[in-house]
């Protein structure tokens, strides 16, 4: 994002030659694309760790009520990893 801001400033400065301006602009587009993609990488999931009978810790997907943040799961969840 910082790089992107630098590119915008460089182009606004107007001191770049046409050739460099194109190169910078191309770089900016690529960076912006990369940043936008990066923001969409996460996959929206809530997981809770639970200890199995063998002592191994596993993750388990749970639903959440988005307005209250409350975990909404049918099964009894362990309150700790003890």
């Amino acid at each position, binding site marked *: 994002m910082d790089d992107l801001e630098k590119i915008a400033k460089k182009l606004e400065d107007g001191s770049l030659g046409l050739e460099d301006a194109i190169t910078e602009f191309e770089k900016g587009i690529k960076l912006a694309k990369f940043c936008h993609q990066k923001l969409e990488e996460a996959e929206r999931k809530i997981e809770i760790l639970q200890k199995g009978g063998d002592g191994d810790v596993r993750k388990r997907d749970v639903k*959440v009520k988005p307005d209250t943040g409350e*975990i909404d799961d049918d099964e009894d969840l362990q309150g700790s990893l003890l």
Partner: protein
Amino acid sequence: MTRETQPFPMALLMEEKIYTITELTRLIKRNIEDNPDFTSIWVKGEISNITYHSSGHIYFTLKDEGAIISSAFFRNVNKALSFRLEEGMSIIAFGSISVFEKRGSYQLIVAQVRLEGIGELQKRIEQLKKKLLAEGIFDPRHKKKIPFLPKRIGIVTSPTGAAVRDIIKVAMRRYPNIEIVLAPAKVQGDDAAVSIAMGIAELNRPEWGVDVIICGRGGGSFEDLMPFNEEIVVRAFYASRTPIISAVGHQIDHPLSDDAADYAAPTPSAAAEIAVPIKKDLHDEIDYYILRAYNSFMSRIRELQTKLKGITSQRSFRSPGEIVYVRELLLSDVEGRILSVMKDIVNERRNRLSMIPDLTRTMFVYLRDKNFRFNRALNALETLSPLGVMKRGYAIAVDRFRAVVKSVALLEEGDAIELLLADGSAGCTVNSIHREAPFGKKIDTKEQSEL
């Protein structure tokens, strides 16, 4: 002696100041309230005559074997209290003495209340703090930076408490596709400390892929927050290789976990705000930069077009083909690259279902128009260019000053000239001069000057 016979002691009247009650009380008030002995102090005593007023204020008397003091615990501070004050309870109150002028009385204005017996705990915490401080556990140099853009956040707290709900709610509101991993932990009771330390250690394992950890609980009494003052928990915060935020709700005394964490948030919600950025803001910021870059870039292109127009409208070229040729090559290259970059933008914006939908359209229309005019300008240049002629087999002769040789009158035998061809140039020497037009028509001096 009667009053009549005893003269009034006039001298006394002249020398001594007589106070009004208001003046005197104000003086007492100032003397007491400005005195550090009576400000921000801890007072131990037993509650009696407690009244819960409908305004939310609590009034009581604190007493011991020898004395009593009226106390007021106002609503704005007492609402933070996690237990109910009752008649006969032994407490330690924190506050300052204040004088109530209208009633000629003084009272303790209470800011915080602890149950007696906490003194011991307090001492233990102080000792632990000293020990850990000496070890460098609280050294700011150990503190890691909270990542700018976490993909997965880890939470260590009770799965049923208010804290986890607040964190999830805030995190999802700010960043709807955030990933959350919760390590459940007990946050009160005897085994709370061990369970919290375990949760922190667990979330540090690479397989959970956690970028930042939030560990804490909602506000509570001094005892409720005790697990976050336990050595094993403080050390777990310190040992966390993943950046960790302490998120313990508290009013006055912060727990030791705050000092060992990479960041100390006053509440679980605040911790979520520190850990998780607002996604829309970031998208907007990227768009803002690219829009700025785009605007500057397009004004540069417009500038270029104006120049191009200047060249094509002259209808003759002062400089010969070589320069035109180079410029032409550059322009066609520029054109191709602008087009490919623009296609990128347009696609990018389409994919994103942009929040500024007009921009894509405007940009697209603008681009199409610009591109059309650009091509037209290029075509004009092509037609007018000597290069077009040269491609058909003609050459341009230039002298050693690279001025175009338009007449044999300018030449002498033995002169060095250069022939510019479509794909290069050749150095030549003038062997002979024929004052006759090559295609039969004689050019006389008069005609030549008219050219």
